[in-house]
């Protein structure tokens, strides 16, 4: 997967590149609008992350030219101004998603993955699995090591989200929005408690802990690697 990041703030751009590269993407970084414009029009990317406030050719222009030349590459734009007009403008010009600075990197990563998954998503599987934890999505049942686990519907939804995105660190705000439809900064404590209660049912009686806390970022479900810190 090849991404283009257009960001004139050098430090931010570098960190974005590093973070995305470490998440397994091939990343090109353009630190000005002109280069960004050129790269976007000539190279083939799976996704473009675009800062709209650029000193020379601004993000809107790049987005406009892209869409005018019928390139449907998904575009996620970054903006420091959280105004409705800005967001509407971006989406009208054909952007697929946006993030307001400052944003959590985990959030960006989650959105990037969602955009990349969009369209290429095959028929939803009936069963998803992490280690010996199996979710039967059609019957909405969970079991681990053959033992049935009783979950409330929201607990199941939370677990499903984590499992579907196994290996991705999901920030609390994303979890609140996806599971409970709380699309604003709400009480993050609620997510911690909910995850703790889920853990009690999923992990407490087992040697290998699947749900992991990534301090300062969020939660992830995965089979622990041997050298990974707890």
């Amino acid at each position, binding site marked *: 997967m090849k991404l283009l990041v257009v960001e004139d703030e050098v430090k931010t751009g570098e960190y974005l590149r590093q973070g995305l590269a470490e998440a397994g993407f091939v990343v090109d970084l353009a630190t000005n609008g002109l280069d960004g414009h050129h790269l976007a029009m000539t190279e083939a990317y799976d996704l473009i992350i675009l800062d709209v406030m650029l000193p020379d050719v601004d993000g809107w222009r790049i987005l406009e030219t892209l869409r005018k030349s019928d390139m449907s590459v998904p575009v996620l734009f970054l903006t420091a101004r*959280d105004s409705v007009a800005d967001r509407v403008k971006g989406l009208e010009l054909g952007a697929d998603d946006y993030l*307001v600075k*400052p*944003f*959590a990197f985990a959030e960006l990563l989650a959105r990037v993955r969602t955009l990349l998954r969009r369209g290429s998503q095959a028929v939803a599987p009936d069963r998803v699995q992490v280690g010996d934890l199996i979710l039967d999505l059609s019957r909405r049942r969970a079991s681990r090591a053959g033992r049935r686990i009783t979950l*409330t519907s*929201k607990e199941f939804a939370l677990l499903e989200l984590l499992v579907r995105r196994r290996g991705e660190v999901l920030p609390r705000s994303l979890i*609140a929005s996806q599971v*409970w*439809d*709380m*699309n*604003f*900064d*709400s*009480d*993050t*404590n*609620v997510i911690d*408690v*909910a995850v*703790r*209660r889920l853990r009690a049912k999923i992990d407490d009686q087992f040697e290998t802990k699947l749900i992991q806390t*990534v*301090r*300062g*970022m969020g939660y992830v479900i995965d089979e622990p690697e041997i050298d990974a*810190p707890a």
Partner: protein
Amino acid sequence: MRKVSITTRLTLLFAGTSATVLLGLGILISKSLDAHFASEDYSALEERIELIQKTSIESTAETLPVKLETALKNYPGFIAQVTSRDRGIVYATEKFDFVLPNTIAKTTKRFEWTENGQKYRGVVYRSPPGSRNLGDLTILVGLSTLIHEHFMGSFTYTLFAFVLGATVLCGLLGWWAARRGLEPLRAMSNRANTVTGSHLHERMPVESVPVEIADLAHTLNAMLARLQLDFQRLSDFSSDIAHELRTPITNMMTQTHVTLTQRRSNENYRDIMASNAEEMQRLARMISDMLYLAKTENGLNLPSSEDVFLDKEIEALFEFYDALAEDKIVTLSATGASVIRGDKLMIRRAISNVLSNALRHAHPQTCIRVQILEENSKSIINITNTGDVIPANQIASIFDRFFRSDKSRTRPDSEGVGLGLSITKAIMIAHNGAIGVTSDNDKTTFTLVFG
């Protein structure tokens, strides 16, 4: 084009008005004087006619001129002519050397004519047929108006001089009055010049200005008061922000500096980074909350208008807070239902903040009750928790930004940044609603009223 000043306008108005009035009056007087002179002249002329008629009855054609001469010599300025149908002109005064136009003589009794540049008034009389001695007589008398014209001429001259003088005087008076009248405005303008951001307490002088301007002064003062309040809020807000930002930044800075003084294990670095990430998330959250609050308070976040089922919203929020409530051994219960028009996301956020606050302060093994009512076509949500009461002296400031019930204690992470209830209040106001709180007997109730 530059506007004409009030002083100039008033001056011109005064001068113009007085000139018009005085001129009108003058014209009226001269007209009636003229009419008066005319009627005096005519009655004098008619008396003369009578005299001539009497004299003519008693005389013959030969004696008439002598008799008339004697009778009329006491009346200077008169001219007269007596014509008999049979004998022609029987008598004419000395200056009577002109011929009357026939039309005038035959049709009118009183008339005016001009002869040799001299204006005359005249009366003609025809004696009925069958008079003795002289037969049918036509008597014509006239009077020069020269004396009257002299009088009227000097009258008009005086009048114009007077009008001119009075106009100038009134103009001056108007100018003076306008300047005097506008003096308070100048005083207010001087006062307004002293008002600046740091001198917003200055007010317009209300006592020393006339009633008409006092109104304006009151209005301006009210405006200044509002501005001062807004300004105060803004500067409070800025200092709040500075204060609230300082704490997490100090934490991060200290922690990072301490870490950098020595080599540490990877584990250690990871810890520091994570702790910094948490602090920064709090900062980011605070910034976005403050922006949201500022926008909502200033009407930049315009709520959309859709049907919001309050019971459904409460239900969704209960699902969200369910785990947290169970964890604290608090039960959640809701009664009632209502539909309002509003912005679903904003309303959910507003209620969420109150619920979160209620949960935070609820005692274990109690119940948080949410009651949805409809009263006087208004929808009301009461959210009651059992817990420590809010001290009476803090009730008023509970909706203030960054309000904390205990200033000394550091806030637990769950508590957010202290903007929740302010945001709720701003959202309620954006929906033309209101929020209130009562707290006693271990019960705290927040009341959200949707107008």
